[in-house]
């Protein structure tokens, strides 16, 4: 299967994105902000279709919209970002705008499926380079704020008392999530970013309680799911995103049954 260039490209792109998604997603799960991450991807859809309307590559629209939305959500922090209803309303509105932009740019409609569900098999060298650069920026930013981010996530009141600027940390983090979401959407589409950003980290947190081991497992699981999903798609001819989504869900629920059996054996 590696004889085909589109497959080696897909493996490279999915590999980069999976690692970034797994690592960033770990903190998304830790902070209980997974829904906010989901919303960012939907807002990104409006950005991507809007970019198409302007004749730009969808990735730049995705980036612009998710970054702006992430910063706004971070700045409104306590008031908005943990309110499911407010996020849900904005999310639906964003999808609506996405539809409107599609409506005015009809030739773009064939790309709608690619945006919503991903099109990793169409990735070229230029996109891989872009994803790699974005990935490095994302992870560098995450590494820079990781310490205060963990403190602020686990104990916001105490962190504030110790001089951590909570709003700055949460805004920066959501900007990082916006970057990761934009990359992730290139592989699995805006509707399925959960498969790489939430599934693997959530499973990792059920497998191990340590921070570094958790990050490692999250990244490894995301990578394994992405690559196995590609392999599975190649041999079955099913859509790649479906295969990754399936593996992600299986891995997550497997951690439940493993723990249930363990509890049963102990009890």
């Amino acid at each position, binding site marked *: 299967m590696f004889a085909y260039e589109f497959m080696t490209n897909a493996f490279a792109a999915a590999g980069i994105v999976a690692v970034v998604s797994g690592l960033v997603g770990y903190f998304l799960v*830790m902070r*209980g902000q997974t829904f906010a991450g989901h919303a960012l991807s939907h807002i990104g859809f409006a950005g991507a279709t809007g970019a198409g309307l302007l004749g730009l590559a969808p990735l730049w629209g995705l980036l612009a919209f998710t970054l702006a939305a992430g910063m706004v959500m971070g700045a409104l922090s306590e008031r908005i970002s*943990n309110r499911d209803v407010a996020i849900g309303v904005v999310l639906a509105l964003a999808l609506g705008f996405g539809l409107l932009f599609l409506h005015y740019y009809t030739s773009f409609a064939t790309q709608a499926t690619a945006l919503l569900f991903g099109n990793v098999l169409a990735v070229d060298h230029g996109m891989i380079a872009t994803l790699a650069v974005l990935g490095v920026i994302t992870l560098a930013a995450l*590494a*820079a*704020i*990781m*310490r*205060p981010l*963990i*403190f*602020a996530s*686990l*104990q*916001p*009141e*105490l*962190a*504030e*008392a*110790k*001089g*951590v600027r909570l709003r700055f940390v949460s805004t920066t983090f959501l900007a990082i999530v916006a970057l990761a979401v934009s990359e992730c959407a290139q592989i699995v589409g805006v509707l399925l970013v959960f498969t790489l950003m939430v599934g693997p980290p959530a499973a990792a*947190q*059920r497998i191990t*309680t*340590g*921070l570094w081991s958790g990050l490692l497992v999250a990244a490894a699981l995301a990578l394994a799911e992405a690559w196995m999903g590609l392999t599975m798609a190649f041999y079955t001819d099913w859509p790649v995103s479906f295969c990754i989504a399936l593996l992600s869900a299986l891995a997550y629920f497997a951690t439940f049954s493993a723990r249930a059996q363990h509890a049963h054996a102990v009890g």
Partner: protein
Amino acid sequence: MSIVTFDRVTLRVGHRKVLSDVGFKVEIGEFIGVLGPNGAGKTTLMRAILGLLPAESGTLTVFGQAPHCGNSAIGYLPQLRTVLPDLRVRGLDFIASSLNGERWGLPSVSRRDRNMIEKTLDAVGARDLAARPLSDMSGGERQRLLLAQALIGAPKLLLLDEPLISLDARHQEVAIDVVRKVCRERKITVLFSAHELNQLLGTLDRVLYLGNGRAVLGNVDEVVTAPVLSKLYGTDIQVLRANGHIFVMSRGRDVERADHLHDHHHHDHTHGHHH
């Protein structure tokens, strides 16, 4: 030297004046019980001492200086503990996150940090919590973990905001005993806010009673009296003493207990909101 002084201090949260023209002095090594109805300003007072809330007027000093954020001589156990119920983080990592948690970069735990955390956990009788995830701990165990965390870094002043909430009676006693023992040994000054006075009677040196924008600091016999409390609650209060217990009543109702029940309800409510 006075550890904390308030001189005609007024504190405002949003549009509400929580404390106005308040004055008192806390001396070194004292165990102060901070009491008063809900919304009387117990948390606000602690936030001011931590340097999170500037005084609108008046002078407030901590260790003889103006309060400032990130003062490592203060140990703090906040009331609004947004511990996510599903958090699978080990006790040791949880505490480690607070060590130099304000610095940028990647987290790291040195051998020295680890030793310090384990020693402090030992001091509060919670060594076994280091390896267990938070999601598997009971309310009492979490509280002990947070107490250990507040004690790390050898603080000179401990601000404990409602540390007894969500503990059953036995664990409340254990928690008070631990604080008393550790703080007497290390000469730590303690501000301990609570809903009920009786559990603290054997432990506290003086009581700081808040209400109606005012604060009165003094011995229990001076402060917990009908005239003083009637002013602080803004209603007619009776104080009954029986078998070494003190009951603060308003129209035949125990105000502390009623507050407590109300607060529990409130607590659960906010908790549900986070899900």
